[in-house]
Each structure stands twice: as C-alpha cells, then as structure tokens.
C-alpha cells in the first residue's frame, strides 16, 4: 500500500501507511493509564442511586474498614476544588456541576464519594460498600415530560452563531406553497463509547502536577486543573499522546481529575483512575435526544420555496449545551426562505455534549429524510432533486462557499452505486432470497472550522525531522497527515519525520474536535516548513537534503516555530489559546463560508420474514478538500459510515423515567456495530484542494463522513418497505 504520490519531489514513492501503526499493533503505544508508576494508588467512585435530590448522609465506615483503603472522600472544601465551569460556557469541564462540592444530586449516577486504595481490588470493593441516605426530589429525564423546561436558545445564549436562522419569510412562503411536507423526526440520545474509557494517572513532582489523561483537549485539562486547584497553569503538564478513541466524548476535562489530583497530593503518591464502563455512561458527554419538526414548501415541480427546521434538544438542568442543528440544514440547498429555531430542554441528566457529527448527523437525518419525502411527493428522483438545489453561495450569508463539490459527490456516487438501475417504486426491488431491497441517498455538510495552532519543527544533522504540534491524535490520522506533508514538502522519507502531538510540553494543545484538527495543524506545519527552509537557506520549494543542509549551518540542529490562525482571526485569538480558551474560527469567514460535503448511497436488505435489516453496501463520496493522508482518510470515512449504521439501526441510550439516569449502561445493552454488521463500503474523494480555506487546501473529513448516512439508510428502508422511518434507531419491530 505504498503509492507514488509525491508531486514535485524526485525521491522514492512515499509510504502512506499510518505512521503510528507499528506502535499500535505491537501494544507498545502508551495510552494514558499504561503507565504503572511505583507506589501508585487506585481511585474509584461510588455513585448516587436516586434520580435527583440531596445527600443527607454517606456511610463510609464499611469502605474505610477495607484493608488497603487510604482515603474515602465525600466532600471537598470550597478552597480545595474551585469552580471550573462548563466547556461551552467558557470553562473547561464536561459540566459545571463538580461532584463532591456540595450535597446536590443532579442525576442518578453522579458520584457521591471517592475511594483511593492500594489496589484496584480494594478500591472497587470499598466503593461498592458505600451507601448514602438521600432526600429525593422529582425529576424528569425526557423531552416533553412534566418538569422539562424549554428555553429559546437565541434568548438564553445570545451569541450570533447560536441565533435562529432567518432567511426571507419562511412561514409565509411555506403557507403559500402548493406542496407541503411536514414531518416530526426524533433522534434518540446516544453515547459515543470510545473503546478506551475515561482514565488518568496523576502525580505531583513538588508543586508541579503531571497528568496522563485520555483527552482531546489537554489545554482544558491543564487550565481546568489549574483553576480547580488554584495553581499556575505552567505547573500543570498534560500528556495524551495516544487516545483510545474520542469522538467528542473527551472534549473537556473530566470530573475525576481534580479529585484524584487532591488525593494524590494528600497521599503523596500517584493516583490512577479508570472509569468502569457503566460510569462512562453517566460521567461524560452524550449526544442529546432531539425532536425535529421539518416543514418544506415547494411548487409542483419540487422546487423549494421554503424550509423550516425547528428542534428541541435535551440539555441538563445545570448547563445549556447549545444546539447547532440548523447550521447545516440551512446550508445544504438553495432555498429562497429558511427559518431555523433551536430550543433547549432542561432535564435531570448530566450535561450532554459532543458525539461525532454531534448536531449535523441528527440534523441531516431529519432534513434529508424530509427531502426524500419531497422527492416522492413531487415525483422527482432523489438524486436529481438534490442536484437541482445546488448553490455556489451560502443561502444564509450570501457569501460564496470556499469550495462546494456536493453535486460532483452526488453524480460520482450515483455512478459508482449504479443508481440508474433503481426502480423508484417502494417495495419494487427484491433480492434472490426474497429480501426486500431498498436504495437510499442522502447528502450532508459539516462546518469548516480552524483554530490557532503553534507548530515547532526541528531538523538535526542525521536528517531526522521532529514536529511538535497542537492537536491530538485519536486515530483520525493527524500524525500521518503531518508526516506526509513534511515528507512531500521536503522530499524525504516519511519515517524520518517524528510527530509529537497531544502533549502540553511540545505545543499548546487546543481542543481537537469538530474536524478542525488536521485543517488547523497542517497550515501551521506548512508555515513552519517555510521557516525551516529559510533557516536552512534552501530554496522555497523542491527536495532538500536535510542532513547536508543542517550540517551546512554549522549547528547540530535547526529549530523553527510557526503559528497560524483562522482567516480573519487576530493575535487576540492566539492569546485565547494561551489562556486555554476556545478560539474557533468559521464556518463563516470574512470573505467566504466553508463546509465539507458528502453524498451517501445505501443499499438495505430486509429479510422476508424475520425482517432483520442489513446493509450490504454503501458508497460514500466526500469533498474534504485535498486529501492529506489517503490511507487514514479512507479509514475515517469507512468508520464514519459504520457510525451511521449504528446511529440508524442500533444505538439508543434508554432512560427509565422512574429511576432517572440511563438504563443500558454497558456495551452489551448499548449495541454498537460488530464486525458482522459491516459489509462493503466503497469510498471516494473529490480531492480538490480548498485553497481559499487554508494554504494546505484541506477540510475536515472525520465528521462529514457520517453526516447523512442515517438519512440514507432511513430513505432506503422507505424504498424497501414504503414505510417512513421518522425515529431512530430503526429496528426490526418497525418493519415487521
């Protein structure tokens, strides 16, 4: 799998395989808790068993009597753990509510005590022995249930990018439309469940706090802990070079970090904590439940006259997790009038958060299902209808899109899939074994963000190049993309490039999420390459004999640094990064608007009798600008498609209103796709650089690849059965 893909260079073909694969297949890659420090102690939570209320008393006697138990903590003093704040409200943590600071129980599953012991066995036993008395209060865990409180996002969080979208008079245009599509679509709560649970090792070296954590946001951990413990951020070092999957679940500081840092200081020992899988369901972000009402107005030919997308999105009682549902539905197609309204519904759960294509995939499930309904209502082919609504300008701002190849995604995907052979009549296609066959299509878009990034690049006399860059590697291929960029630019073998990421020692580590990681890091590395060429006194382009050039400087090594910002950002935004505050640019930039685009074509087969739904093949074509790392990008897309399958057919975080919290809190009860669920996935890229967006021409790929898949599946199920699926997941009982 080595390709001759090194334009402008004369060296041997570049090895495009994942650069950190060898460490991973040998088990040598060191994840957060793979460190086993001398004299380490183990932490464990005991959690609340009521839906909401107050802790009256925690009985810790039995726990304290367990041999090997060193600490049982039920309450931290106000000066011991300060407020950190919710990430999306300017703070750093997964939610504003830090357990063990007061007697509030906001939801079932919230910790009520921390145990630290010499062994994991002792810590676990002791945590299980802790009981508590509570004063219970009424609670609500569902949108629409009594006690749920709805707020208008525009009023509750007055930030421009979270405001209602208003283009034209959509209500009037809809009312006057001869064809009206009205649908209510529900997307369940879901949990990302990366394979690596939330886990950390902390230890103190004097006044310095050293943290090994699994995170997509080492800056949040660093600044969050500094805030929480009242220490200088410079004294907090956070290392997260390998992350066992993130998907947004590791975007913010987790709630155990401050408590175990205090425990480690009290004990004078390192403390390790790995959240048991059921606790991961209650202590981290989840994709909130959303209910969408979509109304499309069109003329008899199917031309859109108005689109209205209203959404109710679950949030917690104590925080507002903002919705960006209509950011994408307002951008997908040309329409003269659009209205988007986002409402947040307070329920008694932990604060929801990001999960791969967090808003975009639920948004597209609803909107692209409605578009399919419009196609059927007006007798248009679903692909052709979408092509007819292509637009080079952003319907919301009127600015041009920096790059939009959605039409090409649709055309190419249709050709690869063989869409022409589709009989549009629902239920008309049957497989040899009698299964009903359905073919569905949907498109998607995802905002193109960029954050400020600092890149350090050094070259040494043996020809080795080391990049230290802001950004986390959690499998998406950031390291591979950076190494390939350097190798291509300088015409050197990929294995001479070492990429260090996810470590506060090498560069500020911003939140790596929202598909902006690679699109932000590559421009910084590219700028650093320019600096390096100047420092080495070599031409601005062409192959470089790095070893010779370094030796010619008379120095053992040459080190440079570069910083890049999003278009329109200033040094102030960089200062935000240095304070650990989010500074995200886009998708609306001063002169253009940037999105990634995709089209998905899905075949489903539904068994004749027992009605199991299978997905034998998917074709996905993605416009993510230039493909920076072809091998890892293709893997990202295949993974995103499988996420879409899980989203559409498998995953729902269930709640039982009588008990609060979540019910199916294991990987058995929460069924993510397994190997046999996945068959053929055909991936193609447009691979046109978006050079207005950034000089590397890259846009995000890891999120867009999932957006629209669930709608394509729902549309395919409709094609197979004639039944509209307006609620996910679609299970066999819905087509029995």
């Amino acid at each position: 799998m080595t390709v001759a893909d090194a334009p402008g260079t004369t060296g041997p073909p570049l090895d495009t395989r994942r650069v950190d694969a060898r460490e991973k297949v040998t088990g040598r890659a060191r994840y957060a808790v793979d460190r086993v420090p001398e004299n380490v102690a183990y932490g464990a939570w005991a959690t609340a068993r009521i839906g909401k209320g107050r802790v009256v008393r925690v009985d810790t006697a039995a726990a304290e009597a367990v041999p090997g138990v060193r600490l049982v903590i039920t309450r931290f003093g106000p000066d011991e753990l300060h407020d950190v704040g919710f990430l999306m409200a300017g703070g750093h943590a997964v939610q504003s509510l830090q357990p063990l600071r007061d007697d509030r129980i906001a939801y079932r599953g919230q910790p009520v005590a921390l145990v630290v012991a010499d062994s994991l066995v002792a810590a676990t036993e002791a945590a299980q022995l802790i009981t508590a008395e509570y004063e219970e209060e009424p609670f609500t865990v569902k949108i629409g249930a009594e006690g749920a409180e709805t707020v208008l996002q525009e009023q509750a969080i007055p930030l421009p990018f979270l405001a209602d979208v208003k283009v034209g008079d959509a209500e009037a245009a809809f009312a006057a439309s001869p064809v009206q599509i009205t649908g209510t679509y529900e997307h369940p709560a879901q949990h990302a469940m990366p394979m690596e649970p939330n886990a950390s090792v902390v230890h103190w070296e004097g006044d310095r706090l050293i943290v090994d954590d699994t995170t997509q946001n080492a800056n949040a951990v660093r600044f969050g802990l500094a805030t929480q413990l009242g220490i200088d951020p410079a004294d907090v070092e956070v290392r997260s070079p390998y992350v066992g999957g993130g998907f947004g679940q590791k975007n913010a500081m987790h709630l155990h970090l401050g408590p175990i840092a205090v425990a480690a200081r009290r004990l004078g020992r390192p403390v390790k904590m790995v959240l048991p899988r059921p606790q991961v369901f209650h202590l981290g972000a989840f994709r909130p439940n959303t209910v969408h009402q979509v109304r499309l107005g069109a003329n008899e030919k199917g031309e859109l006259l108005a689109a209205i997308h209203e959404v109710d999105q679950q949030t917690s009682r104590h925080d507002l997790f903002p919705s960006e549902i209509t950011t994408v539905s307002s951008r997908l197609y040309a329409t003269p009038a659009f209205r988007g309204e986002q409402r947040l519904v307070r329920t008694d759960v932990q604060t929801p958060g990001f999960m791969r294509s967090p808003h975009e995939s639920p948004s597209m499930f609803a909107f692209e299902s409605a578009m399919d309904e419009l196609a059927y209502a007006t007798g248009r082919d679903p692909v052709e209808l979408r092509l007819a609504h292509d637009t080079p300008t952003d319907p919301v701002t009127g600015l041009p899109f920096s790059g939009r190849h959605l039409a090409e995604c649709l055309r190419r995907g249709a050709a690869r899939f063989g869409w022409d052979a589709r009989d549009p009549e629902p239920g008309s296609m049957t497989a040899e074994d009698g299964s009903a066959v359905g073919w569905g299509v949907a498109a998607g878009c995802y905002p193109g963000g960029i954050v400020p990034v600092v890149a350090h690049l050094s070259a040494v006399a043996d020809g080795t190049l080391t990049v230290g860059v802001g950004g986390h590697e959690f499998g998406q291929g950031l390291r591979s993309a950076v190494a390939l960029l350097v190798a291509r630019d300088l015409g050197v073998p990929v294995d001479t490039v070492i990429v260090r990421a996810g470590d506060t020692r090498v560069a500020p580590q911003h939140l790596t999420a929202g598909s902006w990681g690679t699109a932000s890091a590559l421009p910084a590395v590219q700028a650093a390459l320019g600096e390096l060429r100047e420092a080495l006194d070599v031409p601005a382009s062409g192959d470089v004999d790095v070893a010779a050039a370094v030796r010619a400087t008379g120095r053992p090594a040459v080190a440079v640094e570069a910083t890049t910002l999003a278009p329109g950002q200033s040094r102030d935004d960089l200062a935000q990064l240095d304070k650990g505050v989010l500074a995200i640019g886009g998708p609306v930039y001063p002169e253009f608007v940037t999105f990634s685009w995709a089209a998905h074509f899905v075949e489903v087969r539904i068994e004749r009798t027992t009605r199991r739904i299978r997905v034998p093949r998917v074709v996905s074509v993605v416009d993510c600008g230039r493909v920076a790392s072809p091998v890892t990008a293709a893997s990202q897309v295949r993974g995103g498609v499988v996420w879409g399958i899980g989203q559409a057919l498998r995953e729902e975080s269930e709640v039982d209103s009588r008990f609060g919290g979540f019910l199916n809190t294991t990987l058995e009860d929460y069924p993510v796709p397994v190997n046999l669920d996945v068959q053929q996935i055909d991936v193609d890229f447009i691979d046109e650089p978006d050079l207005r967006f950034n000089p590397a021409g890259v846009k995000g790929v890891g999120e867009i690849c999932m957006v629209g898949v669930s709608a394509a599946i729902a549309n395919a199920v409709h094609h197979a059965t004639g039944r509209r699926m307006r609620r996910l997941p679609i299970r066999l009982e819905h087509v029995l």
Partner: protein
Amino acid sequence: MACTVNGRDVSLDLDPRESLLDMLREQLALTGTKKGCDQGHCGACTVHVDGRRVLSCLTPAVQVAGQAVTTIEGVAGEDSGLHPLQQAFIDHDALQCGYCTPGQIMSGIACIAEGHCGSDDEIREYMSGNICRCAAYVGIVAAVRQTADAVRNGA
C-alpha cells in the same frame, strides 16, 4: 500463583479476586492488553491461554496457574520482528485509535489457527467478539483473510 507469560516464568502472590487483565497490566506492566469494558462485552482484553483466545477481564488470575499466557507483547518472532498478522494490520490500515488493536490481533491469530477463516463472513462472525468503535472492520477482515490465505498456502 505461578504461570508463564510470553514464555517467562511468573510467580505472584495474588488476591483471588484479581483478574488476569489487571495482573498483566498492573503487576507485570504488560499494558498492551487493554481494558475496554471489564465485563466481557468488547474483546479488547483478549489474550491466549494455552494457545486459546480468552477474555482476560473475565478470567480470575488464579485460574491460569500452571498455564501459558501469551499477550500482544509475546506474538512477534524470535527476531522481534512483527507477526504476519501485525504486518497485515499495518498494510490494510486495520486500525485507527489502536486501543482495540492488540485484542483484535490476538483474536485474529487464534481465528486463523482455529480454521475459522473459510469466507469473509466466517471471519466477520468469528471476529465479532472484538468491538472496534473506530470501525476498522473492513481492514480487519482483509488483514485476517490475507494472513490466513498465506498460512493456507504455506507461506
């Protein structure tokens, strides 16, 4: 409790409650074996005991007394090169975050040895006990198939 781990004799004073997984990771610092769920639901902790793939999270460590445990750290050849399946995982990009990968490879090596690689669907079935949330399943099947074919052809 005495056993061998990757060919080396190991003797430990164990709490009978401790899992083989925690023994490997916390006592022996063999951290290639991963804890994904600790409940037998994900396969990340797969190791071999006397050549058979098992879940180390559901194996009390005391149960492997006298047996031979092999982990990801022990599958490479004498020259500490890569096992052919490890190489195939690299070549087919059968991984992303890498966290489930040691378990996938331990499972895949056993799947090939068991003879459960007759078709892609058989590989999928017999690799379904190893969840990959990044969903590198297409690559995993390709890597296992290629390695199984090579074994069958005497390579």
